[in-house]
């Protein structure tokens, strides 16, 4: 059974990524200390306090964000019938970011949950525009729409930033990274993410039917529009929550689903699971690399792998867009 080996391999990879991500940073710790610190929760001093209080939330946030971004990318690729879809390309991230900036400006004492809801509203608005404006006419149309809308929203955000002196927020969003996330914030996001992913998991069969194309889906008796909207809303929610904790992460939502599909095939019941875990592990590692390299933006790390991969995908599958 192929999947048994894949699951085993992925578990080992994820576990090792976690340990490595915990080990390296501004200060490095041996693996023994990492494991020990996990079992002596609440230690108030020394290495285990640093590991537990600062690094653990960051590593977990990276894992969760990577998981959400990758699953969101997977669903968007299926629903839009487009190999190049992912939250940052479609402009959903820019929308969420703009809405977060606006809502923190309007309500300065906004809670984290309020920020999440604001971000979701912004992402959803972009999703709706893309859905109804382009109607998925052609893949290149969709990608151009996303790029143009992103540019527009960045300009609006820039405008707010300049008129309100919010420079530091912009830097956070554009560079991406899991620094400064607290366990309490993760406690809000994790259950919501779990619910959304369960919904997507339940809808896995419907997502599979999308792969056959719209006409086939209709002739198989699927209530196409309903599932299209429902799954896209789930994907947008995942993406906008990730923006709230790690900013705009590029390419990850494209890279991970493609790698998974190359190895494990196309059935969503399987790919949702693999994509999530693999994306989380990969983002943990990228965030670790960013930390080690003097807090380099994590986007730069991902772009180094992601850009060549993206160009490869365009050149191999893009011919059908021509």
């Amino acid at each position, binding site marked *: 059974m192929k999947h048994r080996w894949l699951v085993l391999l992925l578990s080992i990879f994820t576990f090792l990524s976690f340990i490595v991500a915990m080990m390296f940073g501004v200060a490095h710790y041996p693996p023994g200390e990492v494991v020990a610190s996990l079992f002596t929760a609440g230690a108030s001093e020394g290495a285990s306090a640093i590991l537990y209080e600062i690094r653990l939330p960051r590593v977990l946030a990276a894992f969760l964000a990577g998981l959400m971004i990758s699953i969101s990318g997977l669903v968007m690729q299926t629903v839009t019938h487009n190999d*190049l879809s992912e939250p*940052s*390309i479609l402009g959903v991230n820019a929308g969420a970011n703009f809405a977060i900036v606006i809502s923190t400006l309007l309500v300065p004492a906004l809670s984290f949950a309020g920020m999440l809801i604001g971000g979701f509203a912004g992402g959803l608005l972009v999703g709706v*525009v893309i859905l109804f*404006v*382009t109607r998925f*006419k*052609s893949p*290149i*149309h969709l*990608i*151009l*729409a996303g*790029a*143009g*809308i992103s*540019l*527009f*929203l*960045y*300009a*609006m955000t*820039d*405008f707010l930033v*300049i*008129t309100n002196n919010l*420079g530091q927020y*912009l*830097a956070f969003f*554009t*560079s*991406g990274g899991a620094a400064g996330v607290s366990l309490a914030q993760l406690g809000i996001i994790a259950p919501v993410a779990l619910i959304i992913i369960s919904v997507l998991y339940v809808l896995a069969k419907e997502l599979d039917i999308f792969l056959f194309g719209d006409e086939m889906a209709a002739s198989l008796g699927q209530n196409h529009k309903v599932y299209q909207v429902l799954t896209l809303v789930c994907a947008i929610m995942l993406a906008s929550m990730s923006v709230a904790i790690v900013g705009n992460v*590029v*390419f990850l939502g494209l890279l991970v689903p493609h790698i998974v599909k190359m190895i494990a095939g196309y059935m969503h019941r399987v790919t949702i699971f693999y994509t999530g875990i693999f994306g989380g592990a990969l983002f943990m590692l990228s965030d670790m690399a960013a930390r080690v390299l*003097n*807090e*380099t*933006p994590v*986007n*730069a790390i*991902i*772009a*180094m792998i*992601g*850009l060549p991969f*993206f*160009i490869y995908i*365009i*050149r191999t599958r*893009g*011919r059908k*867009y*021509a």
Partner: protein
Amino acid sequence: MRNSIKLTVISLLLLAAMVLTLITGTYSLTPGDLWSIMMNRADSNVNLVFFEFRMPRMLITILCGAALALSGLLLQVVSRNPLADPGIIGVNAGSGFGVVLFLMFLSGGANNLYALPVMSFVSGLATVLAVFALSFIRGRFNSNIFILIGIAMAMGVTGFLYVFTSSFDDRQMTMLNQYLAGNIWGDTWAFVAVILPYIVVVSIFAWMKINEMSMLNMNDDTLGALGMKVNHEKVLLIISAAMLSSAAVSVAGAISFIGLIAPHIARLLFKVEMKFVFLGTLAIGALLLSLSDLLGKLVLEPLIIPAGIVVALIGGPYFIYLLMTARKV
């Protein structure tokens, strides 16, 4: 209305915008001042503001606006896609990367006036040419692949851009942000002297290709059968587009949407007559950028909003409208 009349009206509007740009600002001039400048009787303050600050900025603005618009037209003609824009396909990101490199390695040392625009120009041009080189599939230039790879490159380079910024201080960060927001900064005579001949020469080259441009809406096989070297012409036009936009962006900062909107309005007004579309694109691009600069200067005085942001605030909704109406992409 005849096309020539429309073009005249647009030119008059451009002239009005130019005059407004010249007289408004923190130190506003009166029409009387303008008259005395023309009669060569103005006092030295007025002369200084007019000739050393306003005039070069106005010229740079219209030149860059026109260059960006023409670059957009060339890209749209070659890719047969009304939504192509130099900013969207990576020119801005590439030039921004050049600015980062400059701030990183050169800004401390010898302060050569041309070092920053040259680096930003070279890096913007290199980005587009890389995109261009990657969009050949089996020896044929594929314009859809060109746009997609351009978008990918824009994203990737933007991610990369921030690699070096972790070591930047506030001054450098502000400079980069201003640049990326499209603040027209190269506004002195020294830049006019370089940019003006350059843009004129490239535009004239494009003008000589006008017949090819108007034919490019036919498909490649037909054109080949008519005896046109399609690949060859596309390469020349794309290189001209890249040269125009990276030069404009290197002195005016990262400005998008001009290249998208101006050609579209021109096509709307002048339909298929390519000569008028060409000239109209130049004039409308210049008009749009100088209006944006004007609005950014006046609306929230004394706060100055970079022209690039104003352009995007106007251009964004127009772009969405274009998306809704574009029948065939």
